């Protein structure tokens, strides 16, 4: 607590000094201060081709491309609009989003808008594959209150890990008109991924029946090369005293990151479904697969100094397949303090927004979902089977039990939930979530309300090899 207070005092928290957020134009990149030495920004933004107010209409194509994922080696990849990561979808609450998608891949695909509350037929789940050469228009309206960081990626049956590993993933930023954080604050999207390559630079997907294939299937495919926005060890520049807003997405297949900025703590201000009620000071952050965090990072260094964002060891593994080097600390990016004179830090509001708790007295069903290795309730997925049947308007508690010795990250499509407790310990603060890591031999309880949008929604382990193996269930909302 003392550490928290010390940082809070540095940030001069004051609700009374809360700056009104400046009005912003439609869908523009807000990458913050980017100088020539700042190598963190390479992505682009999907261009809005609509002239209609509150409408974002974009073109998105998935296709084979030849480019360099691994530094210095060109190989065949899959790319959205020719980029890895794909261009960012940058929208505002209330916008109608129209995505004209074209599949130029040699295999069926979908685009799943991870974490977004939208109609079933726009979810891009395995129920709606798009064949090679075909097009599909995804349409959804961005719900008020959903401002936050999301991502999009393929979700075809049994091929998600392959398609994402080949390069198909991109970020989504939803902005609100009344964002409590200062509009002047540099805002950076950092998409974390890892990959493994063969000597010729092609992405290494071992034969599933091989020993390495079995290891990948058990652990989730990990690679030794760690990327931030498709770059290895990029540099972010920060001015001494400046505070930047970092939106971090874990797009890795299996790797769970334990992030820490060497030598300083940061403020976590949000998670999957947007901002918390209050900032929370953290020394390190566990970021499970598919999960997002929003952090406020202060330039604590004196001009000219630098620090690194690191991935600290975290044992998510089963003992049989735990990598020998799992305890190695890995650097992800350099945070370079510029030579500019220090600036005074902006004011961070004490209260960010209200996160209204879902009402436990309205719960109509309590369900138990048991995760074992590659299985949910002892079964692999059958798309012809409905595992959980419910109705629009229902509020439910799900008790998610992990009964095996490896972490499994839980993801529910279509609906954001709130965590009630983990192993009986009440969640210390409320947040909207669509990802929740369920550590080995632990149990968490979540509460979810199916506000609208009937359909068949997936819930699954977000270790991509596990979901492709069938560690997934079908939730039908009628």
């Amino acid at each position, binding site marked *: 607590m003392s550490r928290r207070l010390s940082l809070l005092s540095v940030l001069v928290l004051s609700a009374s000094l809360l700056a009104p957020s400046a009005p912003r134009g439609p869908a523009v990149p807000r990458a913050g201060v980017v100088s020539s030495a700042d190598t963190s920004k390479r992505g682009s933004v999907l261009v809005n081709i609509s002239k209609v107010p509150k409408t974002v209409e974009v073109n998105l194509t998935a296709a084979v491309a030849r480019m360099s994922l691994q530094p210095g080696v060109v190989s065949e990849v899959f790319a959205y609009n020719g980029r890895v990561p794909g261009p960012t979808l940058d929208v505002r609450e209330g916008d109608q989003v129209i995505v004209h998608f074209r599949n130029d891949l040699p295999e069926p695909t979908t685009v799943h808008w991870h974490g977004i509350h939208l109609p079933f037929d726009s979810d891009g789940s395995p129920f709606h594959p798009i064949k090679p050469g075909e097009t599909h228009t995804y349409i959804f309206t961005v719900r008020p209150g959903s401002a936050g960081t999301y991502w999009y990626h393929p979700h075809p049956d049994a091929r998600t890990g392959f398609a994402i590993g080949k390069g198909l993933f991109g970020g989504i930023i939803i902005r609100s008109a009344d964002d409590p954080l200062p509009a002047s604050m540099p805002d950076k999207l950092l998409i974390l991924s890892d990959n493994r390559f063969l000597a010729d630079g092609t992405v290494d997907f071992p*034969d599933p*029946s091989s020993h390495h294939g079995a290891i990948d299937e058990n652990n989730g495919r990990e690679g030794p090369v760690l990327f931030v926005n498709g770059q290895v060890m990029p540099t972010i520049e920060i001015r001494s005293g400046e505070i930047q807003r970092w939106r971090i997405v874990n797009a890795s297949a299996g790797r769970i990151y334990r992030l820490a900025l060497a030598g300083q703590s940061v403020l976590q201000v949000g998670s999957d479904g947007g901002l918390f009620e209050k900032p929370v000071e953290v020394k390190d952050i566990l970021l499970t697969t598919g999960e997002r965090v929003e952090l406020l990072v202060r330039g604590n260094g004196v001009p000219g100094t630098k620090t690194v964002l690191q991935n600290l060891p975290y044992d998510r593994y089963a003992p049989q397949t735990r990598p020998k080097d799992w305890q190695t600390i890995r650097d992800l990016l350099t945070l370079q303090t510029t030579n500019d004179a220090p600036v005074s830090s902006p004011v961070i509001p004490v209260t960010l927004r209200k996160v209204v708790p879902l009402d436990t007295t309205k719960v109509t069903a309590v369900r138990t979902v048991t995760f074992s290795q590659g299985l949910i309730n002892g079964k692999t*997925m059958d798309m012809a089977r409905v595992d959980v049947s419910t109705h629009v308007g229902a509020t439910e508690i799900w008790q998610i*039990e992990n*009964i095996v010795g490896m972490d499994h990250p839980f993801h529910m499509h279509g609906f954001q939930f709130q965590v009630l407790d983990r192993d009986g310990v009440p969640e210390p603060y409320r947040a909207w979530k669509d990802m929740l890591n369920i550590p080995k031999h632990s149990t968490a309880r979540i509460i979810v309300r199916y506000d609208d949008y009937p359909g068949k929604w997936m819930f699954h382990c977000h270790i991509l090899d596990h979901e492709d193996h069938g560690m997934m269930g079908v939730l039908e909302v009628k």
Partner: protein
Amino acid sequence: MHRPTRPHSSLYLRSLLSIFVAAACTAAPGSSYSSGASNGMSATAGTQAQVARGRELVITHGCGDCHGGGANPAAFGWLDGVRDTIVQEFHIGPFVTRPKNLTPDNTTGTGRFSERQLFNALRYGLRPEETPDVHITSTVPGQGNFPLHPHYLAVPMPWPAFRHLPDQDLWAIAAYLKTGVKPVSHRVKDSDGPPDFWAGEYTVEKIGTRPAPPYPTANETGR
């Protein structure tokens, strides 16, 4: 909906495959084994007689010697897993393996496994943690619901011997564990093991076939 077809190409698996093919071929119809409920379902699930038979088998097969309680169902720690790490843990090469909690506790025992998963553990050595609740019709990896990458119970669990029990006896053991024993919340630390989940230890060369070769073998008199 089907999971992706996975080719068998590595030498490692090819050798394993041939072993299992051999094993499958020897399991010819008309063997002396009682097939019991060959549809993979327990025919008499949970009857008192079945539970009593299961109890008898658990006692006589020494389950409690490793899993707790010895041969005494009244003993403290009956089947609830390692409590004495010196007596009950095993050191197999670099790995420590630990007899699990067999009581039907939901989070620390067998409560979330079906009787069929327990049957498959005893018949095929497949860990219920990783093997779905399905009827297995083959011993060839990737076929007949036999996992492509079988994850076996840690050594020295004597499933290669127990698998020779008739179906109904294995179902009886499963029924006793699931319904005849009270759940005890007792977490046993996960066993270590090789990344092949002991597949290299359970080759036909090492554990023989099921059914066993016809009597008499060279070791036997034939009388």
